[in-house]
């Protein structure tokens, strides 16, 4: 017969044992690397591998943050997000509204609209790459001049990649908006209908406000999604052309710094910036948007 104390202690030991695997993985592969960035940022790397890196303190940070490449990267990233997120959410909302009735065949439409969520960046890149290819693509069919190749065009490369990302985001956006529509309280909508609200009023003054938590969630998810997109750029544009075509988004810049330029210090500084942006936007969105969000209870 165990005493109460040993029983409790055994429970504690079990709990810690259950948490251990996760904690170990996180410590080695999440927390430690995250913190290590702050150290790496302070060391400048030599142009040739094998030579030691030199401690330069915050000057590297300063150099990177003030460089033209960095500014361009930020602008590209920001433009990309602005192009992708609202369009993707709107598209998803439209599709969700269209598919939100219990009609024949609706299930098939719902599967179709969700389908882009399973596409990977590689698949989307190759598929769209073909469509946008100057020689074999469909652009002439749409009336656009395919030369010079849209993906090598400094003005149009980023929007082209944005189109790919929007298409991919549609599936996720549709799923989120559908879930949101399904959660709207039926009684409130019926009450509005009984009160004589017609379609536009219903939509703008009832549906959208009730849907605002979902839209808010979609914005956060979309923002993070857009920030994490770079595979399409890697496959279709490549490291060499990224800067020239203004598609050097932040994540791609980090990848190039690591893999192409072998400069962990640069990558570390950029990673910290990426983290800071994502964190502050998430917090900002929660603080400011949540005030304007109309929860069904209000």
């Amino acid at each position, binding site marked *: *017969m*165990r005493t*109460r104390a040993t*029983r409790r202690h055994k429970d504690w030991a079990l709990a810690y044992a259950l948490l251990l695997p996760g904690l170990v993985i996180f410590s080695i592969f999440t927390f430690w690397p995250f913190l290590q960035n702050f150290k790496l940022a302070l060391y400048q790397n030599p142009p040739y591998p094998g030579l030691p890196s030199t401690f330069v303190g915050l000057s590297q940070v300063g150099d990177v943050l003030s460089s033209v490449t960095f500014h361009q990267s930020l602008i590209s990233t920001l433009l990309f997000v602005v192009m992708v997120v609202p369009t993707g959410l709107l598209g998803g909302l439209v599709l969700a509204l269209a598919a939100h009735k219990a009609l024949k065949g609706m299930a098939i439409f719902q599967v179709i609209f969700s389908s882009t969520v399973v596409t990977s960046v590689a698949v989307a890149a190759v598929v769209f790459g073909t469509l946008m290819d100057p020689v074999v693509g469909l652009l002439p069919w749409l009336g656009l001049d395919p030369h010079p190749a849209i993906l090598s065009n400094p003005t149009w490369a980023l929007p082209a990649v944005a189109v790919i990302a929007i298409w991919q985001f549609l599936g996720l956006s549709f799923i989120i908006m559908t879930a949101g529509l399904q959660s709207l309280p039926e009684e409130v909508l019926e009450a509005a209908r009984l009160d004589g609200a017609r379609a536009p009023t219903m939509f703008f003054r009832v549906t959208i406000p009730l849907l605002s938590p979902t839209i808010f969630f979609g914005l956060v998810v979309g923002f993070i999604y857009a920030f994490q997109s770079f595979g399409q750029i890697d496959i279709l544009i490549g490291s060499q052309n990224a800067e020239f075509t203004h598609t050097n988004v932040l994540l791609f810049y980090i990848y190039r710094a690591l893999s192409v330029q072998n400069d962990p210090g640069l990558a570390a500084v950029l990673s910290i910036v990426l983290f800071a942006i994502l964190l502050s936007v998430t917090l900002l969105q929660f603080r400011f948007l949540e005030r304007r969000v109309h929860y069904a209870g209000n």
Partner: protein
Amino acid sequence: MARVHFAKVSKRYGDVAAVDDLTLEVADGELLVLLGPSGCGKTTALRMVAGLEDVTEGSLTIGDDLVNDVDPKDRDVAMVFQSYALYPHMSVAKNIEFPLRQRKIETAERKQRALEAATTLGLEDLMDRKPGQLSGGQRQRVALARAIVRDPRVFLMDEPLSNLDAKLRVQTRGDIVALQRRLGTTTLYVTHDQVEAMTMGHRIAVMQGGRLQQVAAPQDLYERPANTFVATFLGSPGMNLIPASRQGDELVTPSGSLAVPAELSGIAPGEVTLGARPESLSLGTEGLRATVSLVEMLGAETQVHCKLEGGTTLVVRQGHDQVRPDLGHSVLVSVDPSSLHAFDAATGDRIEGSQ
């Protein structure tokens, strides 16, 4: 031997005592009901016997074993939860077998015992169903079957009938009593329903605010309540309480006086609380002055609420053939002196020298 003994047991959460200095013995084979309003500590006391709550002070014994620090599974007790706690993803058969799987009993014997327990409760045709496919009453019986399959030394039941509708409750009450009498297992039964308590228990332990008020056989509890709480808790409606003061040979109230009955002659002069059950009051030609405030006709009887001068309301029980007064009428309420109880005006405790 499977008696349960609480010796000065307390359960404290910080400054609050959910169970306060409880001393109680449940005899072997007895069905003892823990009765009281919500928050009185009865469920906490039950869970301490199960081992689901730790004992803060005092010692708890099952049989000859001190079980304060013993794991629930080693105490050989079975519990029927208020919500039945059936495993939703397992069939009835598997639910009943579940307690036996841990005890290294072979499959064949396990199935046999589960079937026996199920048959005792009339569940033999439902063995393959899942709890979601059963009615409330059937689920309750599965919970009971699961408890009896282990043949434990103590049954613990936590308000097992409260989720059933009224009619089913009456029938199941009888079934549980019959089952317990047949198996002869010591049972600790928690409820807030006094009708259940009165009809099912060998003895009833009334609790309030964590403290034991009185433990006795149902009839004793009804006829000789130890304090005003027990007096008013039992009975439907409960005992009427009348504030009065003894002056000489009389018990004086704002509505009139009563002669001090022989049985209460030992009461000290001064403030006293009198108690009279509705059935020992009647409306007649003499007694305390009151006005009728409510007449409730219940078929076989009528309950007349009479407001005394001074504010106290008495409930008088009338047979269906007696004349019913009208609302607002002035009446005289007479008290059967041999059925009068007396309680200390300050503490509410029963004053001996009565009955």
